[in-house]
């Protein structure tokens, strides 16, 4: 039997990077932009934070506040630039979103591994990794401290970015559903022509939501390195979590609050293979890892078969908007 008290926190910390990614991508998709560059952006978010932190640690990392702020700001700047690049190409230049997104992912993963590799060379360590233990200490400090009661283990055993992820998702949900900005954003993603006719600036909404979405997604990369991986960067360690985040958007039918639970579920599915009873064929492990994708496909199929309008992708998803097009 699985020890739930031990399992759930592990599922949560697996899920947090996905939650950042899916909240960011949900905001982006709500504006009608299908940003397949998210995996790349998360890499850039991670490496930018790592670069900032690396040099600050080299300088001795004297100030605790700056030790946290520098990687945070670096990460956000890095992802913001990626978001801007995507917007410039797809919104201003109306390029194909799929192609731009895929190129952005190639580019972003390249940037991540390239600068990661360069830093590893600079660090001159024996193993091909960068260790940022000082920074990580702040990022992975938990409110529970060393408490081992079930409440602390379930709810208080995470770094501050994990709580931030949940708060951001809740805030995103509130903004989308209860504010005028959210209303306008949804209108832009559903029907840019109607939004335009109502005097809403389609371009501005697309830019802002996509860039904010990128920054949020980038934080997922930062969380992964600084908290989950305890400050250790190695090439390609982040894996395909970016794609999983995109799957999560579909799975949570474009609802950030649902995304919170769904991300924990995905996190759980991701590590479920660790908990299979000993003696089972190890190969089954790999099939367990398939589960998040299979359920996502099922959700995608079921929502399209049921054709309930609330659960469909934003109607203009993936299409560029050009006012004078007929």
């Amino acid at each position, binding site marked *: 039997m699985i020890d739930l008290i031990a399992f759930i926190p592990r599922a949560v910390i697996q899920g947090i990077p996905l939650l950042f990614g899916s909240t960011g991508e949900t905001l982006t998709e709500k504006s009608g932009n299908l940003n397949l560059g998210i995996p790349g952006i998360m890499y850039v978010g991670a490496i930018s934070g790592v670069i900032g932190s690396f040099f600050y640690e080299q300088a001795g990392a004297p100030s605790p506040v700056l030790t946290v702020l520098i990687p945070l700001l670096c990460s956000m700047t890095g992802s913001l630039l990626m978001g801007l690049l995507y917007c410039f190409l797809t919104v201003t230049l109306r390029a194909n979103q799929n192609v731009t997104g895929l190129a952005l992912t190639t580019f972003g993963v390249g940037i991540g591994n390239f600068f990661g590799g360069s830093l590893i060379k600079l660090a001159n360590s024996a193993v091909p990794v960068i260790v940022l233990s000082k920074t990580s200490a702040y990022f992975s400090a938990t409110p529970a401290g060393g408490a081992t009661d079930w409440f602390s283990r379930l709810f208080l055993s995470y770094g501050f970015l994990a709580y931030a992820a949940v708060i951001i998702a809740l805030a995103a949900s509130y903004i989308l559903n209860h504010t*005028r900005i959210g209303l306008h954003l949804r209108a832009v993603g*559903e029907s840019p*022509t*109607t*939004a335009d006719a*109502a005097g*809403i600036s389609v371009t501005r909404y697309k830019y802002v939501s996509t860039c904010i979405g990128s920054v949020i997604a980038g934080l997922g990369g930062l969380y992964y390195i600084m908290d989950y991986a305890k400050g250790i960067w190695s090439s390609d360690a982040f894996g395909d979590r970016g794609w999983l985040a995109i799957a999560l958007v579909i799975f949570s039918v474009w609802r950030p609050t649902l995304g919170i639970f769904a991300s924990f579920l995905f996190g759980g599915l991701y590590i479920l293979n660790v908990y299979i009873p000993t003696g089972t064929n190890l190969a089954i492990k790999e099939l367990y890892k398939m589960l998040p994708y299979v359920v996502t496909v099922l959700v995608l199929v079921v929502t399209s078969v049921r054709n309930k*309008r609330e659960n469909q992708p934003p109607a203009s998803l993936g299409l560029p908007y050009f006012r004078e097009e*007929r």
Partner: protein
Amino acid sequence: MDNKTPAVKMRNITKTFGSVVANDKVWLDIYRGEILALLGENGSGKTTLMNMLSGIYFPDKGDISIDGKEVVIRSPKDAFDLGIGMIHQHFKLVDVLSAAENIVLGLPGKLDLKAATAKIRQICDAYGFEVDPKQKIYDMSVSQKQTVEIVKVLYRGADILILDEPTAVLTPQETDKLFAVLRNMRDDGKAVVIITHKMHEVEALSDRVAVLRQGQFIGDMPTKTTNAQEMTNMMVGHPVVLNIDRPDPVDPRPRIEVKNLTVRNIDGIVKLDDVSFTANSGEILGIAGISGCGQKELLEAIAGLQRVESGSISYIEDDGSREELIGKDPLEIQQMGVSLSFVPEDRLGMGLVGNMDLADNMMLRSFRRGRGIFTDRKSPHKLAETVVHDLEVVTPSVETPVRRLSGGNVQKVLVGREIAEAPKVLLTAYAVRGLDINSSYTIYDLLNKQKQAGVAVVYVGEDLDVLLELADRILVLCGGKVSGIVPGRGAKKRDVGLMMTRLGGKTDE
């Protein structure tokens, strides 16, 4: 009623699109506390004129004053600020949002749906609308969507309302409801304009009527002082002598027999209601009617593109054997020799592929005939060249994408291709839409040649004068019903015009 100062004064408004003059020095006054019917045939410039008031178009020349002050209306927002709101034929609503959300869309300030809901309720109570602010648009009927559009305009404080053919999508009951609401608004001191071509609506609803014809302002008068006959005269003008050739029918035999055909569109609105007629070989059957009265649905039903609710469509061979067309797919019907060339409003989109060149478009009908897996490229190419030559299509080459041809030339390509199929039945709609005189005559000649070759030609036209001179028989549609079938020779324009606006064409007086 104090009608002294007009709410809107339009003077010498001129608007051209390319070489087409849509509005030519139009004068129009709109008063508060009055419902004005803007009457005119299709293409007479009613919508264009009102679009200039609502900020969609900008006039080339002329002045607009609101309450005596000269204004410039650059955008829909400018129009709103001046209290002008227009309800277009195509609704601008976001499907997945609720009525209330759509109504407040684009407005500044904090989002307070409760307050908005209260205000919406208040508007609804004041005029007798029924809107559930929480209902999603995709759950609504067309008339509910229209109501949301009207409330949206009122919510923004409009007191000059323009409705573009609002009843086109409504059932008679819904129309009555709408009219009651519009009267309420008039009594509340708002200025209401409805664009229409339906005579009975003008009579039932309006206080004043203004008539446009071919972009020109013909006149206006209180509705009470006029009658349907006079308005029809103003609308259609005097008969024009065109001298279109009309050879006698060649051995006419029944070819297509339509019986009790009823068709509903996707929204469940009846577009054809118990329509019966016969189209003969060697004859041109003209179909007259105001646009949107079921012409499109009729032709599409015959071609197998439209779902039919009830009735039958038989194809009759020379030997008298019959075959039912309903239930067959478009390809089968095509292969039986029924050919449809429908020129839609945007000209492309149906029947032609804009990004393909002329030769490739010729292939749309014939590509299945190539040998083996490959298409036959030579004969479409030849056909394209023939069409270009015979119909004088202006194009750099047959390798030019049709998208880049002018509208008239696109049409020639489409009609030319359909005729080249050597059909037994040729269905054609708006074949001369937007064509110059010479090209139009080329098309008429082609149709006559088809007729003389024994083809059953069904010709849906917009121009009554042409129908009267070209068709052997004219079927008049009115609101999806057959208003009458008259012989083309000797038919009077007035009579047919009346039949278009009123079933049977009889005035009540």
